[in-house]
């Protein structure tokens, strides 16, 4: 701290205040550059299984022969249920499971989100492991409808067949739960909530049969119809709700078994074609980051991950020569590995970016990129804090530097010390360090609370009026900064110092939120950080204090403020989201509906970040920018 004191003694050095903008620019560019080099071999590592107990692909798999015939029969059975109601359907599926001496139960659920009514039924069966004592369980999931809304014919049939096949083995040291969920996102959520008894009984029915603590979950998504369809690759989906990821060991085991033992190629993040070039790796990584940043449920497995149950979805893609049996054997081998597990998954990484089925970067390598971007805001806010302390005292500082003779011959750096001296003279001291904190703090806090309004509206508006609400929000938020700035000016023109402090605090909060967020959901923090990075160059432009030459910026500050504000308006979160949806050709209403469903069903937090961290920062920034116009 003694060291710090000397550093801080320099804080009133006029040169110091020139540095931060360049420094934060450097931070931003550094963050981006850091991310861009990650796909290189030097920075990424090839994956490995670090939990020795898993022994992926070490067992011989026997899921062949007559099982295939039975599978086909079950697939027809599934196809025969397509038209039926969930209850009838699940009765039939339940009978098939029951005929294999499993304990079967069903669960109804009904959610309401954005005026829609999501209701369906799950059916599940518990295989009591002969070697198990009901303390641990692993889950095999097939959703009736996959994420694309197709009927998961072969997936469900495969689960039925595997249930019949697994029952014959005596080596299971964990219970196995076969879950056929009504849909891909809400069904598993309802089930896993009820399993941990953290559900609201009026939406979700409690489970009548339970087993031990869940150790892992694997979902199969194979929508091939009753006459089958040979696939080319396995698409492994691993993103959880709110960007939480399963333990890397599970992913590695799946890849290892599929590609190593069964010879099935693995792909991720919809990179159907991936020939291990820099571009492909980068795109994979970026797609991964976007899907993580959105934090939406990407498959039936997603709902399990927040409960610390590591889960993945195996999805068949393309036209190839692999048939359902090879998928079945993959699942069999995967379950044998999970069955070997002595401890809960903990060895390998929980924070990682994958750029190929067998290449990844771990948190230690990538976190800095998000952190420096978050830090750039903090740097700017510190600079602004110092500046705010300095600004009013500028004229006073001018005077003593050309007083008594004896100090004339000192080298120029002594100005530092002298300024230090001056600053502690009580009268000056009070005026200098006295910062009017009330208005800035009140303003920044209220902007953050203001964010609650759109959050509530978008989570509770019925679907038909969502588009209207969104357009309204877009126009409102675009003009609001201007109005607020004008209003502030009319009520009590905030001094330069106050505007600086407003900006300072809002950036401080933003930096803090992003730093905290970077540990929970790296990608979201990074994306928001990039989108908000221009804010750290926003200043309220004020006429220069008397006795100083007007710089270019100060002379035509009006024009600059207007231009800057208009540029800033393009970074309005609402606009940014709209642009993004246009770019990917998605309807923004769908996004909002998904978000609302996420909020009510999966406990999605992305919109909270948008409305309570990103938007307020942008709002405060553009108010500050506009305020330049009124000086």
């Amino acid at each position, binding site marked *: *701290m*003694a*060291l710090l*004191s*000397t550093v801080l*003694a320099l804080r009133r050095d006029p040169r110091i205040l020139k540095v931060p903008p360049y420094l934060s620019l450097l931070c931003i560019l550094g963050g981006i550059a850091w991310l861009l080099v990650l796909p290189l071999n030097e920075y990424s590592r090839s994956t490995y299984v670090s939990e020795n107990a898993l022994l992926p692909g070490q067992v011989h798999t*026997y*899921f*062949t*022969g*007559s*099982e*295939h*015939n*039975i599978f*086909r*029969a*079950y697939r*027809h*059975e599934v196809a025969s249920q397509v038209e039926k109601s969930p209850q009838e359907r699940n009765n039939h599926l339940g009978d098939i499971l029951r*005929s294999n*001496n499993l*304990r079967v139960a069903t669960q109804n659920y009904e959610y309401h989100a954005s005026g829609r009514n999501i209701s369906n039924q799950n059916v599940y069966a518990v295989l*009591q492991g*002969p070697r*198990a*004592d*009901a*303390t*641990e369980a692993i889950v095999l999931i097939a959703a009736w409808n996959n994420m694309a809304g197709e009927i998961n014919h072969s997936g469900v049939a495969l689960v039925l067949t595997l249930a*019949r*096949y697994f029952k*014959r*083995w*005596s080596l299971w040291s964990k219970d196995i739960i076969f879950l056929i969920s009504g849909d891909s996102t809400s069904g598993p959520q309802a089930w896993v909530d009820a399993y*941990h*008894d*953290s559900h609201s009984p009026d939406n979700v029915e409690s489970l009548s049969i*339970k087993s*031990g*603590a869940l150790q892992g979950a694997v979902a199969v998504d194979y929508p091939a119809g*009753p006459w089958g369809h040979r696939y080319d690759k396995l698409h492994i989906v691993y993103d959880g709700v709110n960007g939480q990821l399963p333990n890397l060991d599970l992913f590695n085991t799946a890849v290892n078994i599929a590609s190593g033992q069964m010879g099935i190629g693995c792909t991720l993040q919809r990179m159907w074609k991936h020939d291990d070039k820099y571009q492909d790796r980068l795109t994979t990584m970026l797609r991964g980051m976007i899907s993580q940043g959105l934090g939406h449920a990407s498959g039936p497995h997603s709902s399990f991950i927040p*409960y*610390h149950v590591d889960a993945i979805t195996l999805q068949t893609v393309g036209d190839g020569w692999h048939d359902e049996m090879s998928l079945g054997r993959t699942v069999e081998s995967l379950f044998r590995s999970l069955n070997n597990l*002595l*401890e*809960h998954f*903990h060895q390998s990484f929980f924070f990682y970016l994958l750029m190929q089925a067998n290449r990844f970067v771990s948190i230690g390598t990538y976190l800095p990129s998000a952190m420096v971007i978050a830090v750039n805001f903090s740097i700017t806010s510190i600079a602004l804090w110092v500046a705010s302390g300095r600004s009013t005292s500028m004229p006073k500082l001018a005077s003593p530097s050309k007083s008594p003779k004896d100090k004339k011959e*000192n*080298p120029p*750096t*002594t100005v530092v*010390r002298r300024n230090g001296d001056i600053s502690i003279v009580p009268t000056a001291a009070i005026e200098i360090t006295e910062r009017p904190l009330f208005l800035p703090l009140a303003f920044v806090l209220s902007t953050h609370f203001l964010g609650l309004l759109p959050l509530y509206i978008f989570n509770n508006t019925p679907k038909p009026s969502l588009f209207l609400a969104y357009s309204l929000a877009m126009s409102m938020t675009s003009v609001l900064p201007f109005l607020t700035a004008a209003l502030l000016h009319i009520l009590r023109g905030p001094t330069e110092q106050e505007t600086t402090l407003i900006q300072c605090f809002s950036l401080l909060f933003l930096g803090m939120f992003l730093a905290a967020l970077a540990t929970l959901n790296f990608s979201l923090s990074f994306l928001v950080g990039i989108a908000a990075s221009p804010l750290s160059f926003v200043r309220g432009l004020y006429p220069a204090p008397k006795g100083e030459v007007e710089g270019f910026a100060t002379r035509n500050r009006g024009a600059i403020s207007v231009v800057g504000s208009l540029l800033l308006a393009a970074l309005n979160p609402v606009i940014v989201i709209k642009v993004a949806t246009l770019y990917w050709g998605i309807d923004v209403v769908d996004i909002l509906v998904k978000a609302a469903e996420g909020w009510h069903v999966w406990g999605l937090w992305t919109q909270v970040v948008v409305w309570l961290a990103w938007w307020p920062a942008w709002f405060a920034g553009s108010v500050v920018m506009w305020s330049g116009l009124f000086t």
Partner: protein
Amino acid sequence: MLSFLALLLFNAFIASASASSDYSEHLLLRPLPQKALLASFNFRSNESSTAFEQQNFRYFPRSLGQILQHAGTKELHLRFSLGRWDAENWGQRPWNGAREGGTGVELWAWVEAQNEEEAFARWLTLTNALSGLFCASLNFIDATKTIRPVMSFPPEGDHQNPSQLHLLHGTLPHEVVCTENLTPFLKLLPCKGKAGISSLLDGHKLFDASWQTMAVDVRPVCEEDGECTLETEQTVDMVLDIDRSKRPRDNPIPRPLPIEEIECDTSKGYSAQDTCYPIHKTSEPAFSLSGIYGRSLKGACPLTDESSENSYTVCINTPPERIIHVNTTGQYAESTSENHAMRCYKLPVGADFDLVLPEQQMTTRLVLAQPPLYAARHINGHGQEHGSVQAVITNPSSTDAVEFVYLESLPWFMKPYIHTLQARVNSSPENPIRETYYRPAVDRQRGTHLELRMVIPAASTLTLTYDFEKAILRYTEYPPDANRGFDAAPAIIRLISPESLDKKGIYLRTTSLLLPLPTPDFSMPYNVIILTSTVIALGFGNIFNLLVRRFVGADEVQGMGPGGLKGIIRGKVERLKARFLTKKKTA
């Protein structure tokens, strides 16, 4: 009620028989639904207590006897259990659950001692000796795993001086029962598994069962005339999956059957050469003793007395229509109970004996006795901070209420909040809890002990919940597989009314729980010590640095030069020096 009666008869005549003869053994076979087979072995030997005192053991195993005498143990109950009893499909538990234990190892004993301390000391000697005898880590039953139940375990035997008897009870839920426990168990038998029904007991088959429990019970039984005998009862109950057990040992892998051997449902529209909807067989599967046990029954144990009806050793409980072929070279006798649901066989001596049941489509099937209660227990909530335990107990009987004692014995690092304990019955608003006994845990000294006497009205479900908090342990207190979590012992339920016909009582147990605890980073001790000390040193150094030195003007200090960049740098150096000096002082 066919079989239920039969079962009662069976138990009854074993009970009656036991007193008279000195050694007897019985095997009850009962095919259960879903291709399961219940086999319950029972070995019983008596020793007059006088002979026992003089250490002349006839049938009573000497090794065990000496341990009991040394530890002043009057009554002993030891259980090794594996798997779960599926009450929905298999009905009432054998021996009404009185001869089974919770998952792992369970031990309780009546120890004679002047005071609690002495009792506990003897208890420790007992556990250590038994762990040596049975190759189980019973010696890990220490103070934190020992409780003194008050309502759950009344003495089974007849004791002279009950005042000086202390009941102690301990469990090891995580203990894995396996063949190394079976071998010493068989060694205790007079025929040592060479002859008699014990010759069937084979580790591989026994521990491949869906559910199995081994029990050793020693209790004094006194006649009215006051002369007492010490009764040893060894029990092995198991439920075998017939398909699984029939697999030959050299080829245990359940490969998919050739398609020819699978019956397909041709009525299905899509049925074709390559598409087969398997028909769910309703017929009773075929099995034979030698088939499912992988070895043959080597005739009767010569020590069982020939005369009494007690010598009808092997009994099988099936509907009368079930065909049973007896397959032996020696000569045997068969007796059937009056309702023909129970067929008993007197084993030939010195010749193999086998029962063969062909596959058969049955018209009648056994009515399995309905268990008096169903119980399930789970942990709710997630995260490693706190959670809540939920026990769901159902009374299926439509006529009479059930009164029972619910016993929880929890490890100390699982801290229940008894004020959050709630018991609700879905049928009535009144509180089902009649009586509570609670002894809270003390960190690292003893575990929680909770006993509740409760009543469930007819045809209703009782839900019992309480919150608990998970403690974080010292890093030396975690086992090697810390991230698996810790096991919490099963809850034990003893029925008070309807009360049982014999002194054994009616029991059932829930499954054990897995309790994941928060874990520290085991690789960190040095770093933690260093970092924490650094922070403390910084605070301490900073403050005392200010306290012990005095201020002077910067320009009064010699050798600081005219300041400027040079001065600042030198100042830094000086400060660094100063800082390290104080640090040394503090560290």
